[in-house]
């Protein structure tokens, strides 16, 4: 790559840097890019990767919070894992979790969040602020308080919903526990998708939409041809994160305690019961490992789905 005949005027120090500066947009170069990434990676390594690997290791022991196994945990290899995957409860929980994720995250939060972001995209003023404020409020209220709100809403005898529908005594949480927690979680989590899509829609150049509108595209066609291609990356991220979080969401416990009869015991609740209530941390860690693997499958599925369309 070198070229021999440089003019004599060339400043000497520049010679050593021949080809040495980077050609990315901001001229960061790998060295500086690494420096930008380093502090985040350091925190992640110490406070995330290390403890996470520790959890995976705990899954291979019979560690408990108390009792003799707390003093001297034994290495049990894959016993926990095998026990976990051979109990029907786990697969029941997995199935319920899939319903929960699909219903509340993929269908509920993503669709509702996008719809609100789309409806509000060109608006300003009190209506937008009211809608967004309420949606966000549902999201940021601490779960300890939210559970009371929803019990007050869904209670069979005194609940607001039954009073409004005129069907006192209808036990939503008992007869339709999954539907209840799905709607609950949709209510609770829509804000994130709304905000993400709101910000993403802000990045769609309005001129693109204008030209599509001039070309006579209907609302749906505008979405499909202009908006979706533009925010595909955000959709992927959104789906991935929302699914991941919903997989690990513990808040259904506050509403149904996993019941009745385990009919709403999603995986996160299962882990909570095993690890915290029963104190079987080793077993709980093994179930966490299983959840991790399921999450991995889901993530790969999304990647395939959205990459293939590119």
């Amino acid at each position, binding site marked *: 790559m070198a070229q021999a005949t440089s003019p004599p005027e060339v400043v000497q120090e520049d010679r050593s840097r021949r080809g040495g500066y980077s050609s990315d947009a901001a001229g960061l170069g790998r060295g500086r890019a690494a420096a*930008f990434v380093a502090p985040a990676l350091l925190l992640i390594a110490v406070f995330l990767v290390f403890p996470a690997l520790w959890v995976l290791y705990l899954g291979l022991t019979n560690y408990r919070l*108390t009792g003799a196994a*707390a*003093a001297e945990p034994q290495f049990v290899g894959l016993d926990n894992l095998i026990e976990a995957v051979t109990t029907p409860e786990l697969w029941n929980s997995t199935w319920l979790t899939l319903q929960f994720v699909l219903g509340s995250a993929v269908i509920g939060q993503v669709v509702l969040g996008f719809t609100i972001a789309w409806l509000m995209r060109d608006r300003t003023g009190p209506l937008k602020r009211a809608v967004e404020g309420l949606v966000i409020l549902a999201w940021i209220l601490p779960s300890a308080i939210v559970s009371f709100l929803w019990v007050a809403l869904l209670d069979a005898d005194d609940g607001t919903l039954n009073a409004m529908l005129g069907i006192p005594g209808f036990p939503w949480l008992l007869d339709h526990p999954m539907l209840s927690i799905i709607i609950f979680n949709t209510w609770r989590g829509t804000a994130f998708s709304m905000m993400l899509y709101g910000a993403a829609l802000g990045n769609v150049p309005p001129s693109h939409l204008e030209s599509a509108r001039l070309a006579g595209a209907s609302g749906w066609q505008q979405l499909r041809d202009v908006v979706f291609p533009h925010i595909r990356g955000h959709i992927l991220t959104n789906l991935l994160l929302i699914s991941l979080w919903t997989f690990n969401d513990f808040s259904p416990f506050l509403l*149904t305690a996993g*019941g009745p009869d385990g009919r709403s015991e999603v995986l996160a609740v299962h882990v909570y019961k095993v690890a915290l209530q*029963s104190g079987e941390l080793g077993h709980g860690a093994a179930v966490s490992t299983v959840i991790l693997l399921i999450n991995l499958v889901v993530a790969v599925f999304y990647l395939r789905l959205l990459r293939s369309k590119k």
Partner: protein
Amino acid sequence: MVRKRSMSVVAAIAAAGLGLAACGQSSGGGGDTVELTIAANAIAGGKNSASAEHITKWVIPKFEEAQKAKGKDVTVKFVPSGVDDEQYKTKLSLDLKSGKGADVFDFDSIWVGEFAEAGYVKPLSEFVGPEADSWDGWAQIPGAVQEMASFNGKKYALPVGTDGRVLYFNKTLFAKAGLPADWQPTSWQEILDASAKLKSAGVPVPIQLNAGTAMGEATSMQGALPLLAGAGGEVQQDGKWSGASQPVKDVLGLYQKIYGGGLGDPKLQQEAKGRDKSFQQFAEGEVGILLEGDYFWRSVVNPKTGVAPMADRDQTVGYAMIPAIEPGKGIHGQDFVSMSGGGVRTVNPNSAHPKEAFELLTFMLSPDALREETKDGNMRITPRTDVNKEILAGDPLLTFVSEKVLPVTAYRPPLAVYTQVSVALQEATAAIVSGTAPDQAAADYQKKLEGIVGGAGNIAS
């Protein structure tokens, strides 16, 4: 230049992050002053608020004063908490495992065994010294209550209180159903008969007997376990766990009669906040009979401080002992049974000042301290008979529990695995509520039990 600067800024942030934090703490415990901390699941303005205030406003100043009089400079700091028992236990375990934690801390007596096995607590005499055994207060504490704070025959802690379970009933509803105001059933059948009468009298929930997993430990303590005792069984006896035994089947059979026969509200057992609702319903006069602890009297329907206050509690709420299935068929051949739990308090084996900490422990269990703690409507059953006689006089229910119930009560096995067994028991009752036959539920329970306690060899059926 720029490159260098950005690098060093980044490095500085990272270093500051870890470095600053590392210098953030200083180790306490200086030369002359003895610093003690005391932790309890109590917090001013929240859970067990009165105990927290008792500690901060009375115990600490008085104890420091008393020590000063002896020429010792002791300061005590209270570390409040106010969370679920499970979370408090988690936090305690983590602290103790790491060699940290308060010098003196409260915990549930049911954890004594598992904490001892994990090495989180040690026999008091081992590290406090002989004064742990020679404390004069022991003489005032009944053996069963002492047992609560012991494991394998060694004293690990001091009991700080106990309780008992009874059958509460609503006298107004009873009158409506033609039942006596001084009702005292002597067999399970009498309970069922009373419930049936309440039902015909139009009482929405004739009897509330906690069941299912949503209620958690409340199902065991205010449901399955006292009934099991009434059927002559124990969840664990002589190292063997009770499987699909006759007592277990009897208990499940009673559940089946109540929830299969329309005497109880099955839905209430499945709701996450079912227990809260059962309290509210009782306070609103919709529940005829309720099996609950003395806590229900003191803190739930208490006209002044209760969460579901009943202004006419003393007139309306009746109480009776829990009968055995039939007279003389209860545990140890008893006619009546109950279950008890209670808190204990101990010294952290990691404490730098175990002797002073033990003094604080005994100070808090002195008659003066207990008298102070339980005044102003903050009545509860203390571990000391001498104090109980004096303070409980004003409260009929607590006197009743202390005099009639505690002599016949039983305690749970203080083993780590108990929590899982308890859950299995709750699941068995849940199965009954949703329609499974008692024999089937008992068989399922035994199967589950085998998985938990390590094989059929540890099970007696």
